[in-house]
């Protein structure tokens, strides 16, 4: 077991690593378009993703049966199959095989499963010569590094660093010329292929109906590894099994497209049973039959298969699409955002099963929860949800860290929490520097160079309700307004505007004073018990008023309230009441767009001469959880005073995401800076969004980096449009 990691220090180091930042930044820039182009001749991507999800999830439900069939069919065709419970069993089997068959030299093509169990070290210790032959894997083996990406293991190194490692290894001066270095690798490794006694490959899939394995590669090394040596060993995890040959179809279409933007890799090999080889006997070449060993590796996979939630990891096809769109991975790479073998959010989950919970705990907090990965994953894995569930389990087992639990005590005690927030307006400085409150997982971190943090408003929204709420005779709908803490205490003006827009629709609005935090900051940390307390408080607060619809102008609040029924489903007293609240709860911009549409007010309007330019930022959760992204734009389009201009990467995370923005303020401000650049490039006067978390972040960015701009919630824009119309 290695020493506990210091994640913050690692992050700081990587943020200063220009090579890594340059490579990852450039890749993040070009990847989405490359993937899009490759998907150009796929008619229905969603159908393929559904197919992978379905095939894999049906397979995992009967994994033993499928594995038995795979084994029987492979054996029938002449392969030897060994089931390895863990790395130790696998290594013992291989070392024994090496001894029995007089194996001294091994060539390998890429196998992450072998890295997971440190296979090479074990073989080398026993005096076996082992060479990785995938160029990237060879480079990191020379460097003594671990892969930093599942598909591009050496993406963290540049040509000069690679040339240095080559120079050291080959004892001759190697120029940092990429084509020449690639040729050098070909020449150097060629003899390794020709002289090897054994070849070890991984597998991208294993087919139960005929015992075949599939290998998807580009360099041609896997074909040599599987062709030349007299023994071929395949290391395959249970999650790679599929029932039939044709089940490989959606995977073979999405894997290359998602991994590298290729329609197909250079090579795709299907191997079933031992194949012929040529061996030299007494100076003559004769044909013989290869020895084929297939090792099915468990190492935590079967435990995952029998877990109702985490069996979802069987839908992973190791394409790394999730890493390729991850905004945190883009900044720090897989050495920081990763464990022993696997990187990123999916890496955290895989590590939990294959390396243990300690490794999960090392880096799971780097998942910012923006859900971009869920839009590209070929197996439709809901990575952020799996991470949250794993957090819940660690909390259940071990409790929260002491400081965090104290904060949650405060947050669940609404009066105390609100009292503290009120106190903050009076004495903001001492409050924010207080050790306890500094850790509030909302917005009360320290000031930073690139971002100011918001001040607590002098008068919270809850104390301004009377100034704005007016009686509506025969209201079209009775609305209950759930503001969430941030709108209540930081952006009360926006809360007031929400009420104005709703009243303009001839709807009456009440603001139940008993409402408190939605519970997201607590549930995101994995604490179910605290979250339940918070949920019950809010349900009771809204039950006091008989409203038709509950409106929240923050996606997190809506999402969280929609989770109340699941949270309380086993509580007979609360289950139905939670459902009733969830059923009534709607997001503000989608609701208003729908009402405007009914009233014929949602059409694009001729803009006034003095119309100002607005660019709209998609909040991660508004777009990817609630699927609301057209409505806010249509609302802006439907105004006369605001002209919408799109920014680049409008739906890329701004870096706030609740506690992440405070816990990892350096990463958070890096993400904000990228967002601010895209915002400024539009020359807009206003940056609009519809999420109070994003508002905190964007206001901070505007203050420090774009003082001429204004940050507004869509509700502010709508209310101002109403004011202007009244004035006309």
């Amino acid at each position, binding site marked *: 077991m290695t020493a506990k990691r210091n994640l913050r220090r690692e992050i700081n180091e990587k943020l200063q690593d220009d090579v890594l930042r340059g*490579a990852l930044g450039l*890749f993040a820039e070009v990847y989405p378009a490359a993937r899009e182009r490759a998907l150009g*001749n796929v008619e229905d991507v969603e159908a393929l993703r559904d197919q992978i999800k379905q095939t894999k999830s049906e397979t995992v439900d009967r994994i033993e049966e499928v594995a038995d069939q795979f084994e029987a069919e492979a054996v029938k*065709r*002449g392969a030897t199959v060994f089931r390895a419970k863990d790395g130790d069993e696998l290594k013992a089997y291989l070392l024994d095989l090496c001894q029995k068959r007089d194996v001294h030299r091994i060539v390998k093509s890429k196998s992450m499963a072998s890295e997971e169990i440190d296979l090479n070290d074990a073989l080398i210790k026993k005096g076996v010569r082992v060479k990785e*032959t*995938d*160029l*990237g894997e060879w480079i990191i083996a020379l460097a003594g590094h671990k892969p930093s990406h599942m598909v*591009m*293991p*050496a*993406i963290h190194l*540049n*040509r000069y660093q690679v040339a240095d490692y080559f120079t050291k290894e080959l004892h001759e001066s190697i120029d940092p010329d*990429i*084509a020449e270095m*690639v*040729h050098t690798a*070909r020449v150097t*490794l*060629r003899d390794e*292929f*020709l002289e090897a006694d054994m070849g070890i490959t991984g597998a991208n899939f294993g087919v139960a*109906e005929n*015992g*075949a394995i599939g290998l998807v590669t*580009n*360099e*041609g*090394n896997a*074909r*040599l590894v599987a*062709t030349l040596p007299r023994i071929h060993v395949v290391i395959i995890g249970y999650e790679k099994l599929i029932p*039939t*040959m*044709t089940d*490989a*179809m959606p995977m*073979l*279409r999405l894997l290359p497209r998602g991994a590298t933007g*290729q*329609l*197909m890799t*250079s*090579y*795709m*090999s*299907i*191997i*079933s*049973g*031992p*194949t*012929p*080889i*040529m061996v030299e006997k007494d100076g003559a*070449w*004769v044909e013989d*039959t290869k020895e084929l060993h297939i090792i099915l590796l468990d190492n935590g996979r079967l435990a995952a298969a029998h877990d109702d939630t985490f069996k979802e990891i069987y839908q992973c096809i190791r394409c790394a699409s999730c890493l390729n769109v991850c905004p945190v991975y883009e900044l720090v790479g897989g050495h920081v955002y990763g464990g022993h073998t696997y990187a990123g959010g999916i890496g955290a989950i895989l590590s939990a099963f294959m390396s243990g919970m300690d490794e999960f705990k090392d880096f799971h907090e780097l998942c910012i929860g923006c859900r971009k990965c869920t839009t590209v994953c070929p197996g439709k894995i809901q990575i952020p949800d799996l991470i949250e569930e794993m957090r819940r389990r660690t909390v259940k087992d071990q409790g929260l860290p002491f400081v965090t639990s104290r904060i949650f005590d405060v947050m669940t005690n609404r009066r105390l929490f609100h009292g503290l927030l009120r106190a903050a307006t009076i004495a903001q400085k001492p409050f924010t520097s207080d050790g306890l409150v500094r850790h509030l997982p909302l917005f009360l971190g320290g000031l930073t160079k690139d971002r100011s943090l918001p001040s607590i408003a002098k008068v919270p929204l809850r104390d301004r309700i009377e100034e704005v709420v007016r009686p509506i005779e025969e209201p079209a709908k009775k609305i209950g307004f759930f503001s969430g803490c941030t709108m209540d205490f930081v952006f009360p003006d926006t809360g007031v505007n929400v009420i104005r827009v709703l009243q303009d629709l001839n709807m009456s609005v009440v603001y139940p004073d008993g409402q408190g935090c939605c519970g997201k900051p607590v549930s995101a940390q994995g604490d179910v018990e605290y979250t339940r307390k918070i949920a019950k408080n809010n349900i009771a607060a809204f039950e006091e008023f008989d409203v038709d619809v509950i409106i929240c102008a923050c996606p997190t609040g809506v999402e969280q309230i929609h989770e109340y029924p699941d949270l309380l489903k086993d509580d007979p007293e609360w289950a139905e009441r939670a459902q009733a609240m969830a059923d009534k709860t709607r997001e503000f911009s989608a609701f208003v767009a729908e009402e405007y549409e009914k009233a014929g007010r949602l059409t694009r309007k001729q803009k006034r001469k003095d119309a100002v330019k607005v660019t709209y930022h998609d909040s991660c959760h508004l777009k990817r959880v609630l699927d609301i992204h057209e409505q806010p734009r249509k609302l802006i389009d439907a105004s006369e005073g605001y002209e919408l201009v799109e920014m680049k990467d409008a739906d890329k995370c701004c870096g706030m995401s609740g506690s992440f923005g405070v816990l990892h303020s350096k990463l958070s401000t890096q993400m904000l800076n990228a967002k601010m650049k895209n915002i400024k490039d539009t020359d807009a006067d206003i940056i609009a969004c519809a999420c109070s978390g994003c508002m905190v972040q964007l206001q901070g960015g505007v203050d420090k980096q774009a003082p001429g701009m204004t940050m507004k919630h869509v509700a502010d824009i709508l209310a101002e449009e109403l004011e202007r119309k009244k004035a006309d």
Partner: protein
Amino acid sequence: MKVGYMIMKGSCENWTEYFPADKFSESLYEEFESRAKNVSTEVYRIQSLGDAKKIVADIISDVDARKVSIAADPMIEESGIIDAIKAAGISCYTTKEDIAANRHDADIGISRVEFGVAEFGGVCQNATAIEDRLVSTLPPLHIAFMKSKYIVPGVEDVLDIISRTFDSGYISWITGPSRTADIERVLTIGVHGPSRLILIAVDDETGGNA
């Protein structure tokens, strides 16, 4: 097509029986060829098998090849290239023993491939016989013969044929030359496999298993 080494029943020999001939069209070939070229495959489409001799001779002289390994196949034999190569004084290996003995330094490998796939511009090779693999993996240049009428639309069609005809053995899909982007993500052609893939697509109905 050669009747290769079979462990159990024939691996892929009878694939033509399951070939979706009704799906072939000229535009399918054109899609195949254009996608093949997109991934740096060089494609020669010829009317008659005999036209292959000049193409192969030009390639040999262009790269100054000294040793050529050929995985024998009726189509390649009928093309006359073997005799032509030998007549030109170039070493030509056609038995698996000779191919194995010269695996270090053959300059060109020649084999037959079964059919092309329009969706991604690759070809499907029954690579069960060792000589098919040796000539297509080791030399820096691989020339593959195919029939231009044998093109399937996509991945689904290939897997359909494979699942009907394949029991055991080795199948390779080959889509362009060997490539890597492992250093700075710069696409570089020719790592461990051939740096050039040349397809000779023959229209001729005769020759090999037409």
